[in-house]
């Protein structure tokens, strides 16, 4: 799976869990400000990503993650 396809799948998860406009899920989008996602929303999103990609993301790696790009980087590093 190339990075573009991975991002598309990432985006699908984010749209489903956060119920946001797909056009808003861009690398520079901030979860809190731009996607109206709080910390529990992120936990739910990470669960969906773990399922989708068959990966395991320890909570510690999510500290300081504020943007889509940062989150995608964490996911990509597991693929």
């Amino acid at each position, binding site marked *: 799976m190339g990075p573009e396809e991975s991002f598309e799948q990432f985006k699908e998860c984010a749209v489903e869990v956060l*119920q946001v406009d797909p056009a808003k899920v861009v690398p520079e989008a901030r979860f809190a400000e731009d996607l109206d996602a709080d910390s529990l929303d992120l936990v739910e999103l990470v*669960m969906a990503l773990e399922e989708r990609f068959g990966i395991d993301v320890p909570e510690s790696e999510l500290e300081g993650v504020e943007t889509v790009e940062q989150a995608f980087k964490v996911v990509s590093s597991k693929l």
Partner: protein
Amino acid sequence: MLALSPGPDGSGALAGRRVVITGLGVVASCGVGTEAFWQGLLEEPPVGRERPVVGFDASHLFGPKEVRRADRFLQMAVTAADEAVRGAGGIEALRGDPERAGSYIGTGVGGFQTLCEQDRILLEKGPSRVSPFLVPGMMCNRASAEISMRFGLRGPCECTVTACAAGTQSIANAARLIATGRCEVMVAGGSEAPICELGVAGFTNMTALTRSGISKPFDVARDGFVLGEGAGAVVLEERSRALARGAHIYAEVAGAASTADAHHVTAPAPDGGGATRCMELALADAQISASEVTHINAHGTSTPLNDAAEAEAIHKAFGSPGPAVTSIKGVIGHTLAAAGAIEVVAVALSIQHHLIPPTAGTTNVDPSCEIDVVTGGPRDWVPGPVVSNSFGFGGHNGSIVIVPPE
């Protein structure tokens, strides 16, 4: 008068502040919204052991993200509360000092379906897949909390959990908060969404559900209750405040009482003693005599034991023939903790329409129930004091006295 310090027989009681109902909201299988609900109470219900609110949708109140997570009991509570608050003139006109405004929504099992669903995920996928929204979604106080947040109510925000007595007791407890002077306005009611595999299995195996699929309270052939769901909500206000702002007053909460059977966890005390005491205390609280009561909105679940005990309790407290008795559970089934709240809404609508809806499903009143059951069709009625009863597993009894507005 929602007495603050009742005398033993109601005399010499120190009356509390008067509390009126200025908003109504309801979600029931026979109708969502007070108008549809009232019409539904006058029509023939469907047959079946479960009576869901078909086509219920609260997405307009939650938005696409929240609605997926909001338990059905929460969605129903918010829908009912929203209607009640809008009907009372909207939250800006209603709220006043937010520190003296509160919410009080009772439930029996809260977000039970959320709990069941997440338990299935736990067993299928393991603990790491259990939703972070399980705890806030299943907790019984969630509906009260949600309503406080939505409407900016910062006074008491509580939840009575007394099984099927919770709706009545929540409204009573909320009214008392106004009577004592702690609050000026309360959004109160009850909500329940128990219709799922585990809920149905539990009630079926305790032989509480009907086999015939017909709810027929006080009928000689009654054979258990139909499992319902729904929510009822009212806006309660201190009377002079409601008058000052020109609010429409549906009815007044004149008194209430709460007692326990102290007998058995699911069976009512056979002589209805706890229920009799509850009704008598509620009347003393309201400083109204039994002979003044013209209508009783009964708990009337359609189970053999409840209806026998309640009929005996009513007979003891009111004599023969006594007030006109109806049970709307003939139409909507037993909505558990929502029942008492939905029934207060029904009483307010009866007062408005001068009409008592019939006990649907009941064709042949049990001769051992020596009470005047309204059957066959609605009965014209000159509104007067009403008692509404709710009894819950655990031996909880709740009675509330509602009177027409002056």
